[in-house]
């Protein structure tokens, strides 16, 4: 969780990676707009236009800060979100030592990661609720819950505004799934840290 949230200077650099068609860019756009338009922070959003965007790897860079951002490109992310193994391999070495890693559990083997990892089977959850295309929104809900870089309210409003008309309700449901999963994960870690692993300790 972000401890700097309430401190004077806050700056978070977030890199989302995956492959084309997973809605990586959309997730980045929602995150950036939620931070600026709803939470009233500064934010920048850049989508990668490298050769990899043609069908292969794809990424979105979002910076959220409470001060003016002078340069929108990220070289050392605080938060790395990976939805493909290729994206993971490419960026894992750039993450800051105290950074957070969020991965799509079924698609990524987070070998050699030395930072705190949060994983969610977003694609499977999306398939179970009938729409594989919503894995990005589930991931976004998860991200909102575990990192708190944007507020829940801001994220929900922005999802509603940016997703195609007529799909708002489905997307909100997907977002909430990811959010619930994130909250459950945090709760589980808290309980485990307190030595309560099961219902009968």
């Amino acid at each position: 969780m972000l401890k700097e949230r309430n401190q004077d200077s806050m700056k978070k650099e977030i890199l989302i990676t995956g492959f084309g068609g997973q809605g990586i860019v959309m997730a980045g756009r929602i995150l950036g707009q939620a931070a600026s338009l709803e939470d009233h922070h500064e934010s920048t959003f850049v989508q990668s236009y490298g050769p990899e965007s043609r069908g292969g790897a794809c990424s979105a860079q979002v910076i959220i800060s409470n001060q003016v951002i002078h340069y929108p490109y990220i070289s050392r992310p605080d938060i790395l979100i990976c939805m493909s193994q290729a994206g993971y391999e490419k960026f894992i070495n750039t993450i800051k030592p105290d950074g957070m890693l969020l991965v799509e559990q079924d698609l990524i083997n987070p070998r050699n990661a030395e930072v705190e990892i949060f994983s969610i089977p977003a694609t499977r959850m999306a398939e179970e609720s009938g729409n594989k295309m919503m894995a990005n929104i589930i991931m976004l809900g998860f991200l909102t819950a575990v990192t708190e870089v944007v507020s829940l309210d801001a994220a929900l409003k922005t999802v509603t505004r940016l997703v195609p008309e007529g799909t708002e309700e489905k997307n909100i449901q997907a977002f909430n799934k990811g959010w619930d999963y994130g909250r459950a994960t945090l709760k589980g870690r808290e309980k485990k840290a307190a030595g309560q692993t099961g219902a009968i300790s």
Partner: protein
Amino acid sequence: MNSFHIILFVCNWGPHSAFQKLQDESADIPAEVKMVRIPCAGRISKALLIKAFEMGADGVMLAGCHPGACRYGSGTESARQNTEDAREILELLGLKKDRVRFATFLPDDSEAMLRLLKDFSNEIKRVGKSPVIPTRKPAPGPIDKKKVAEVVAAHDIFACQDCGKCSSACSLAQMGKPFSPRVVANSVIAGDIESPTVIENIWACLTCGLCYERCPSAVNFPEFIRDVRHVLSKSDRAGHETHGGFFQSMMRTLTSPDLKPEHWEWLPNDIRSNPDGKVLFFGGCAPYFDIFFRRHLGVRTRKILVDSLRLLNFFDIEPALLSDERCCGHDLLWSGDQENFLKLAALNVESFHHLGIEEVITTCPECYRTLKHDYPEHGVEINFKVTHLYEIIEKEISKGAVDFKKMDQSVTFQDACRLSRMERMADLPRKLLSRLKPKGFQEMKDHANAAVCCGNCSWIGCDSFSKALQVQRLRQAHDTGSNLLVTACPKCQIHLQCAMEDPFIGEEIKMEVEDLSSVIARTICWE
């Protein structure tokens, strides 16, 4: 009337000689003591001890022979155990254990007896008048045929097409009982309600609902039976209550508004509840079952409640508990006592409303069905939501980050008729079962909506056909190759375990039984 009523059960042998001596000497036996002479103190069952209180006693003393002096050998010990259990039950009921006492006397112990009677009488006066209002027993009389006709019309029994599907499905008929729901329905329509066979059949039905499941005309036979039983009871033609009517006595006692039961005193300290919460956990009668059956079946249904609460706590849900919780009334309703059912329903709902409860969680399928459907259907309005524990647990688990430990047992599942058939929720426990990690899971031959009954409902008329049914069911469970029978209702556990006590085939049909809530609670963990 403010006078006290103390019942003194006196064994025919030693204690009666002592009592007679007091009478002969015109000793000043406290006036509130009413003596009842009995053949042996060991024959005064828990049911009889509690019945005295249902009928308005303020105190009961059981006088038996000295240990070793019992003419029948085990009478003293039985009496001691029964009194001990009855005292605990009185505590649960909120009547205080001091109202029952057991003492032993030799024939020449008259002085000691007098001292003890005076002491007990003072004690009862100190504890005070019992808040129990005796319920009236209906007077014998002719069966109200008009009412029967109304029940027939209300359930549209005329829709029966005489196809016989119900009779070929009926669990009792399958066991060879000369019993047919079709014939019962048609006899009642024909006005043949006075016939002893018809009456016997009306009380024999298990209300398991298998016939309704099969009926092409949707004749709801179990509810029809339930309501005909009500009419029969009103003319004193109640069925045979099992266990000496203990459970009916306990439920009727609980209908007294001034009684303050102490339902949760026994709960382990580490369970977290929230007295101001708007979500309430309604436990049901498990605490009574465990005391009543502890010397016979080793029943441990309180564990179901503890494990359910632990599961809620696992997900950080801290429900409110009703310290003076009463029975939901299910068994009174299904055994024909609608009047007392309604009293319990009104008292429960009043308590919920008083606390501003918005949602009631139950783990017992009977409580679930009763609170959710039978209260409103019988005119007791509810303004709270009724949720089964499984619904909440499933919702929480599906949020993710939860895992289950591997089990070293293979499991099969006994459906609860109230949940799987009547509430059409057979899929829900299965969804939870599919999340577990047992060695294997195998359904019994008859399962889900077609599952076979555990053999008894509402503590009415348990007989050899019930036993045969249970044996058949346990054989089906063994046929799956499983070694753990998972249940969803405390009573399925009790009745099926009862069959395993059979001295001849008990070993063969024995199987470990555990409630689904307990299985989940002991295997769930954070991922």
